[in-house]
């Protein structure tokens, strides 16, 4: 079985000053996740590892580096899904957790539930001994500055330009040497969102979906639009209908644009190792590792081959 891992660091109009760090970040995350697969690790372990790497990287809007809500606080969402069992774990609006994707995995493996929110999610984290991270350690100076600016201009104007909004949710999909697929997505949401706003990332079928029978998907973009078309599940549906992975993603993004006038991006992988990283926004930082080779991109149609992955 061909092991493949793909990651994304968010689909939006990534400004030039963040471009290099974003590309570096996704390449590093892909390498880390691929190493797990290379040593016979599971797709689930690999996607968690890759997403943790991006949560720890302050350039992305997930874990460290998350954007702030209307009250100037950090509220994090994440999901992980195991294509073998359709098992899934998700957290929404959890606070002071550095690696929400790992908390999401704990929800899947240590509870009978699929999703925990807010204070309940935090209580669970406490109960299982998850370390809390003070808000100041999660928020960058850059984000504080941008948040102050956004407060000045108000959210209304920003809504018109969905892709201009910082949307660097992170995600990963993988297929391991046993043919099992998995996905994971993590985010701090959108800057200045209402307190308690839940986007697509932790919602199964929207921010991510994985099924050994067809593949795994992780999405990024304007959360509300992704939710309306249940983007991840839509991509999987097209794969189920026999479409190539790349076509399934392209078709679904086109549909989202047609129905709800929004751009976005998605990464997807099939059990046979076909993969895609496609977006309709200005940019999306992504990287993929397969057969010892690392690929990456940022701008549309870009697909650069990098040196072999260790």
């Amino acid at each position, binding site marked *: 079985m061909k092991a493949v891992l793909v990651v994304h660091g968010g689909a939006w109009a990534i400004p030039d000053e963040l471009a290099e760090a974003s590309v570096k970040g996704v390449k590093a995350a892909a390498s880390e996740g691929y190493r797990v697969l290379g040593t016979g690790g599971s797709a689930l372990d690999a996607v968690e590892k890759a997403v943790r790497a991006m949560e720890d990287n302050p350039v992305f809007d997930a874990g460290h580096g998350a954007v702030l809500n209307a009250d100037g606080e950090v509220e994090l969402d994440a999901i992980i899904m195991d294509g073998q069992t359709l098992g899934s774990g998700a957290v929404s609006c959890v606070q002071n957790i550095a690696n929400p994707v790992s908390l999401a995995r704990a929800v899947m493996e240590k509870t009978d539930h699929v999703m925990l929110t807010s204070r309940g999610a935090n209580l669970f984290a406490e109960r299982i001994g998850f370390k809390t991270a003070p808000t100041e350690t999660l928020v960058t100076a850059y984000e504080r500055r941008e948040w102050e600016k956004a407060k000045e201009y108000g959210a209304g104007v920003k809504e018109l330009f969905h892709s201009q909004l910082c949307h660097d949710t992170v995600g990963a999909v993988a297929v391991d040497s046993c043919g099992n697929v998995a996905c994971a997505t993590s985010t701090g949401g959108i800057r200045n969102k209402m307190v308690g706003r839940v986007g697509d990332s932790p919602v199964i079928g929207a921010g991510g979906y994985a099924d050994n029978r067809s593949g795994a998907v992780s999405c990024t973009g304007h959360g509300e639009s992704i939710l309306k078309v249940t983007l991840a*599940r839509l991509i999987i549906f097209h794969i189920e209908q026999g479409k190539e992975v790349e076509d399934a993603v392209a078709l679904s993004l086109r549909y989202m644009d047609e129905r709800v006038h929004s751009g976005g991006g998605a990464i997807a992988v099939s059990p046979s190792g076909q993969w895609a990283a496609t977006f309709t926004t200005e940019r999306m930082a992504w990287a993929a590792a397969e057969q010892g080779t690392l690929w990456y991109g940022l701008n549309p149609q870009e697909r650069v081959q990098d040196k072999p992955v260790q």
Partner: protein
Amino acid sequence: MNCCRNSEHCSAYMDQSKRRRGRREGDGRKSYRPSLRKERSKRLSLCLVGMLPVLVVHGGAGQIPKERVEMASAGVRAAARAGYAVLQGGRSSMDAVVEAVTNLENNPSFNAGYGSVLNVKGEVEMDAIVMDGRTLASGAVSAVRNIANPIQLARLVMEQTSHLCLTAGGAGQFARAMGMPEVPGDSLITEYARMRWKKNLAPNANPVESQMGKMGTVGAVAVDEDGNIACATSTGGMLNKMEGRVGDTACIGCGGYADNRAGAVSPTGHGEAIMKVTLARLILFHMAQGMSPEEASDLGLATMKERVEGLGGVVTVDPQGRWAARFTSTQMAWAAAQGGTLHFGVFSGEDVTQDIGDPS
């Protein structure tokens, strides 16, 4: 085409379809001459007018105890009548489903609003969703407390914010900002809910099995005169759930989905299982492939049973007004209103009809 249940008013269509069948038997080929296509679509639009509006509600899938069956059935019938009256008044499918679900939230016999099951701490946390099939707009709340009608708050999320889902404290904050009255948590708790909670605190209790027992999530789907489709679902969630547990109800594509192009679904049953197969969305995918609401619903529920061993039920409607109320659990209280007739049932295969004006 398995059209409406009143094929008498569509006898012209039936004749035409007989003629088509005859031609097919003759030369073995299906042929649709352009003139026939136009005629067929004219018949269809006659059918459409005859079929709409329609509203279907459910009051939860499970194993309703004998003594509660009549309460549940009476409740869904009352809700269906209330929602249908809205449609007959020319108002929208969104207004109708919210009316029907509000009615069920206010009815303590159901696991939504007043009468919600309790979380492990003995408190009420509620989830709800609405979706507008015309625009794919949606509003949802999860783990919200101290309000009587989460479905109305979900609608406000859709109409008054640029978001689709608000949770917990944030949802409560929004409710206050909207002037929604805050109610004491206790006022939503019934003796029955408290009794079930205590019982399930026992170490060998099985809340999942129990959940598939006594009380259910409520929901409604509707198509109005203009052909606009909507769905609404509301719940107190799972018996003795962990604090902050969010089930399918607040998750678009799982606890509800509506699309003018395909139809609407409102599920009930084991929330985690519904989420894993994104049940509402799955059923509509099948309908988009040409299946009837009944076939699609049965296939979706069978998939859920096969893949994740989950039981449940759905109410489903398509743009032509065909509807279905299907379930794999032992019972599901449901009622459908269409063309002046009320259909309802609780047990598998049951479909009782009465005039909608009949007060019982």
